[in-house]
């Protein structure tokens, strides 16, 4: 026989003693086979199950019924005994920790739209490359300064700012502090956890102001600045923007 460790035996005996209402020593003796096991004379709970009442078959069925032997009892008067084992409470065993997310397969639901959009981009790119010639002016000459000399278009908003403010502020401090540091710090400054547009009107307003300001400054730099960085009207004086050399023909 397997040697059961003493401490486990005692633990089991305690449980048995508690369940049967006997002493621990008694339970231990019973388990070792030294005493007659205590039995409980508890009557099982009896549930009365009422016999199913069978209604008299309607007349047309009578013919069918005739084939069946008459002795067959359709509703035997039986007494079914059932025991209630346990009651399972109506709550889940596993507790979900996160909300279920509605997901779809990447193939084809994401990859097909992606493929279509990159095909559309390719078509658009080939189309504009076929009709619009990239600018190529005279060979670079450090001795001949064009008037005005303009930066690439995405820096023209800054170049426009340079004409108002000190270059250390407009040319360095604004791009470095606002353009880099402040942009990177946005998620650490905006501690509002909500991402519903109605709950973050202030943030949306700020960004929209930034877009409008940067866009306006860039457009002024691109279209409304001529020789000497003086104000010009594109529809009167023409456009000084060589990126769009073969694009815009106002003159």
């Amino acid at each position, binding site marked *: 026989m397997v040697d059961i460790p003493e401490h486990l035996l005692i633990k089991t005996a305690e449980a048995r003693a508690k369940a049967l209402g006997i002493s621990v020593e008694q339970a231990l003796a019973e388990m070792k086979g030294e005493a007659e096991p205590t039995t409980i004379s508890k009557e099982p709970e009896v549930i009365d199950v009422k016999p199913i009442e069978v209604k008299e078959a309607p007349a047309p069925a009578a013919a069918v019924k005739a084939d069946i032997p008459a002795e067959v009892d359709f509703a035997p008067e039986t007494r079914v005994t059932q025991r209630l084992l346990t009651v399972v409470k109506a709550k889940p065993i596993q507790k979900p920790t996160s909300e279920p997310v509605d997901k779809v397969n990447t193939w084809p639901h994401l990859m097909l739209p992606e493929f279509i959009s990159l095909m559309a981009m390719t078509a658009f790119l080939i189309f504009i490359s076929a009709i619009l010639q990239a600018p190529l002016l005279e060979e670079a000459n450090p001795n001949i300064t064009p008037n005005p000399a303009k930066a690439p278009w995405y820096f023209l908003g800054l170049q426009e700012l340079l004409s108002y403010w000190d270059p250390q502020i407009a040319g360095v401090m604004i791009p470095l502090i606002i353009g880099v540091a402040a942009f990177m710090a946005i*998620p650490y400054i905006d501690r509002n956890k909500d*991402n519903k547009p109605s709950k973050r009107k202030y943030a949306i307003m700020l960004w929209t102001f930034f877009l409008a300001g940067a866009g306006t400054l860039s457009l002024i730099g691109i279209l409304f600045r001529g020789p000497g960085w003086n104000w010009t009207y594109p529809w009167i004086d023409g456009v000084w923007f060589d990126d769009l050399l073969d694009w815009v023909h106002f003159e």
Partner: protein
Amino acid sequence: MKNEKIKFRDRVKDISAGLGDSLKESSLWGSIFRPGSPFRKGYSDSPRNRSYVVMNNVLYHLHPVKVKRHAVRLSYTLCLGGLSFFTFIVLTITGIWLMFYFRPTEMAYVDIQSLQTSIAFGSLVRNMHRWAAHIMVIVVFLHMSRVFYHGAYKAPREFNWVIGVILLLLTLLLSFTGYLLPWDQLAIWAVTVGGNMASYTPVIGAQVKFALFAGLEATEATLLRFYVLHVLFLPFIIVIFMAIHFWRVRKDGGISGPL
């Protein structure tokens, strides 16, 4: 609506249906396309195979097997992040092609001229490279705005926004260094204006300009410097940051939202 869905399923059922069975049964064909590929013989549209299409392909598995339902709506992202990446791919391909015909020396201008006049598709590829560069700057900026308006930079995605800002700066630097390469009057003076802005940096302004121009003004030494930055150094850096960016998108729980 229901009817359209069935049609869509039928369409993706077997995209290699037109190919001959003898070709698809060959061991060569089977060795190229891994199990689950829609090009393999006997591909059927099942959830299991839909997972394999993504998992068993080195390019596609940039994506997760499943994405949130709202994320596949074109109106949510406008595919701007994907298109930023795609314009970068187009720029890499056209850029490598252009490198065959370009010397970053005093011959640069002549090379661009002969590229446009005497090389097959030279003008088209140069135009594609230039317009795609402009489009990339615009698309990256629009992507940034889209992310802001959706509040997609919020926890746990704060750091991916920071990487995104670095990617925007690298995009601008790539565009700016490429601007000089045609070596015409537009290029040299735009870069001179940009370099002069950098020279206003407090304390180390002169040194910044000297490092950028490899001298006191834009010369052929600047051309070589910008060329190396444009074709090697900056693409190398931006690819590293793009890898981190894409990886973080997935690690931070996929795309943000729904709103």
